[in-house]
């Protein structure tokens, strides 16, 4: 099976670190809310294994003015895309 992990706090929290301890190879991470600040931090994104696909919620990045700094590895998706991602993965694990 595969999981979509959502992370909703910034790098000042331990959410990403905790998630990475227990993530599986075919999983993906979607950054939402204050979690989207990860998406413009290449240094932090480096700690995530190459097999993990990365997404950021466009609405949250627009609000925060971080869309322009989006790292190449992260794909911006809107809420419709969020729903579609939930369907593409077998379950959603929320980190908050």
């Amino acid at each position: 099976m595969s999981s979509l992990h959502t992370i909703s706090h910034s790098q000042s929290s331990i959410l990403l670190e905790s998630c990475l301890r227990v993530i599986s190879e075919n999983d993906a991470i979607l950054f939402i809310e204050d979690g989207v600040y990860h998406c413009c931090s290449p240094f932090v994104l480096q700690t995530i294994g190459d097999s993990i696909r990365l997404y950021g919620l466009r609405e949250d990045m627009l609000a925060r003015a971080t869309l322009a700094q989006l790292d190449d590895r992260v794909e911006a998706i809107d809420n419709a895309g969020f729903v579609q991602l939930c369907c593409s993965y077998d379950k959603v694990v929320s980190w908050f």
Partner: protein
Amino acid sequence: MKFSLVIYAAPYSTESASSALRFAKSVLEQGHELYRVFFFGDGVHNASRLAIVAQDELNLQRQWDELIVDHAIDSVVCVSSALRRGILDQAEADRHDLGQASAYESSEVAGLGQLIDAAIHSDRVINFG
């Protein structure tokens, strides 16, 4: 697909309740089913019908109510979380002589069984907190 949402966060204090609302709308727009919305912990405050919000700001509680009514969504407020936070349906308000209900009628005040039922019968459970 059948989705259920669990909301742990009060409105206004964090973005999570409004994130959940946007997600719920998106689920419906794409033709998926919302099997249940479950308000848990501080999330029960989203069902308050007493909120008074300035015209230029989002009334999150009312938006939830409208979504739930318009789409006939099964919405449940966890009873043990709700009572201690003053979120009461009319029956509880009457029982304790506390006047009118503080919860919107569109949400049912019920137990955690409804959350587990949702987990069993939904294809996806999404948590917002």
